[in-house]
């Protein structure tokens, strides 16, 4: 079945046609083939379901989902949709409950998503009720398979998705485990409404080329100059990536000599304790941005740690959900350090505020150019891992995986 009447440009991964961001039929295909397909989607942190009989809402793409922890501590997830007339089952963001009651007609479910009760099933006073052979259980909310890794909860609707660790590959698994080194302690969260298609944000995350050019703060304070040692890992399937750099500054002068806007000598912080950091992972890597196809990000920016997920809300709107965390082993100084460094990230982030707007800049300019193309040739045509980050390999990798799932 064709996703769309369009065809991918013959150049392949070095071109991205702009109709991908504005084609309504393609958006629906993405929901079916990617989000409800054989992919693993980040739903929440285990720490966000703190005790037995708790629940939290999440999403599989645009599909509303409920994640629960039952009285034995086991996690479940199912579609947030009643078997009866299709109402949302859970209206609150999170809470505690032993069962779930639909407000519309009081049909009840256990925390695995099984229908356990139908109000007035046998009628009232011998009249009405549901015919004995009727089985609304057969139309119940779809159940997700769940797997957890280092306290991250992933779900899939598809029986064809390989086991999570196989889906991720050993390099991604190792770098998830690297960051999630201890039990998580939540620090808080917030969301950004991005005025763009979800794919534009994922491209931004995987784009190591823009980091020091768009984010001047980053470069000026030598947090992530491209001349610093680091690299990029792209998974075999293309869809996942890790970008990392060492904390030490190599002191290169390439930017000053090139006279780029990004370099502003003498721009020092009056309060440099903002950037005071410790090597909590013990390997000298000060920055690690990791993404999992389709819409998960794990961020380590010095000691500021966060997970991010996307909720597509139409062709040109996406919710970016942030959850920042530390570990239960953190002392007060470490917690304070993480809170200070959180000034770097999020919607007001010194180095990430631009990422809220840049996807929208593209969306606004390309919606009237659906048959034209963007050029993605930094680093050639490669989708391979590299020890240099002046490359768009992870962006090409994203499209390689994407085209596979939607059949383009």
């Amino acid at each position: 079945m064709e996703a769309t009447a369009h065809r991918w440009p013959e150049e392949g991964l070095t071109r991205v046609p702009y109709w991908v961001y504005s084609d309504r039929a393609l958006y629906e295909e993405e929901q079916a083939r990617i989000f409800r397909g054989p992919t693993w989607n980040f739903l929440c942190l285990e720490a966000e379901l703190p005790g037995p009989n708790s629940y939290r809402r999440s999403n599989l793409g645009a599909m509303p989902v409920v994640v629960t922890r039952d009285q034995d501590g086991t996690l479940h997830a199912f579609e947030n949709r009643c078997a009866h007339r299709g109402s949302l089952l859970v209206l609150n963001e999170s809470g505690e409950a032993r069962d779930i009651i639909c407000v519309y007609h009081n049909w009840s479910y256990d925390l695995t998503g099984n229908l356990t009760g139908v109000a007035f099933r046998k009628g009232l006073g011998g009249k009405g009720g549901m015919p004995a052979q009727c089985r609304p259980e057969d139309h119940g909310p779809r159940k997700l398979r769940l797997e957890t890794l280092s306290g991250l909860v992933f779900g899939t609707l598809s029986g064809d998705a390989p086991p999570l660790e196989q889906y991720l590959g050993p390099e991604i698994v190792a770098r998830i485990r690297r960051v999630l080194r201890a039990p998580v302690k939540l620090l808080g969260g917030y969301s950004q409404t991005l005025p763009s298609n979800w794919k534009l944000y994922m491209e931004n995350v995987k784009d190591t080329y823009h980091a020091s050019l768009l984010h001047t703060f980053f470069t000026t304070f030598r947090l992530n100059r491209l001349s610093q040692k680091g690299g990029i890992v792209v998974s075999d399937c293309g869809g996942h990536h890790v970008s990392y750099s060492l904390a030490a500054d190599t002191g290169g002068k390439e930017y000053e000599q090139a006279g780029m806007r990004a370099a502003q000598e003498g721009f020092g912080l009056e309060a440099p304790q903002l950037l005071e950091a410790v090597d909590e992972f013990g390997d000298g890597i000060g920055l690690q941005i990791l993404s999992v196809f389709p819409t998960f990000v794990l961020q380590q920016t010095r000691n500021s740690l966060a997970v991010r997920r996307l909720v597509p809300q139409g062709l040109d709107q996406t919710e970016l959900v942030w959850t920042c965390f530390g570990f239960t082993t953190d002392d007060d100084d470490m917690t304070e350090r993480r809170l200070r460094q959180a000034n770097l990230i999020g919607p007001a982030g010194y180095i990430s505020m631009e990422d809220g707007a840049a996807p929208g800049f593209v969306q606004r300019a390309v919606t009237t150019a659906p048959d034209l193309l963007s050029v993605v040739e930094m680093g050639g045509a490669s989708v391979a891992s590299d020890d240099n980050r002046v490359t768009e390999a992870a962006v090409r990798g994203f499209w390689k995986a994407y085209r596979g799932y939607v059949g383009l």
Partner: protein
Amino acid sequence: MNIELQLKVQDLNARYVQAIDDNKLEAWPDFFTEDGRYRVTTAENFERGLPLGLIYATSRAMLRDRVRSLRDANVYEAQRYRHIIASPLVTPDEGRGARAQTGFLVARVMHTGETTLFASGRYEDHVVFDDGAARFAEKLVILDSRLIDTLLAIPL
């Protein structure tokens, strides 16, 4: 009610939002004491006792750094705010100053003219009087919603 205190807090609030709305950001840090604290968070975080801030400053110097970054480093489309603030609920603080809670709405007006209700919330302030001048020893901005439209550049 201490009318003089009420008016002093209202005057401080009015001058604070005027500085921001009139794009006099360089004056913004001076509304705080030298080690004044300024934090922006969400009601959800606040009610759960979660300490994360969208902005988390613990000194006037950090606020000056933020202003410089907004002027010289960060990239964002030209925009302005219009604060509308409620009358503050003022409680004298034994020792010095007062606590004040003030509701606010902020419209954001982009250079295109597009105007949205960008933020609603309340200020939880600790106001102190240094040499008679009212300043914030602490300002906690609690946003009613966890959703931020695109980005938060200009402080609230």
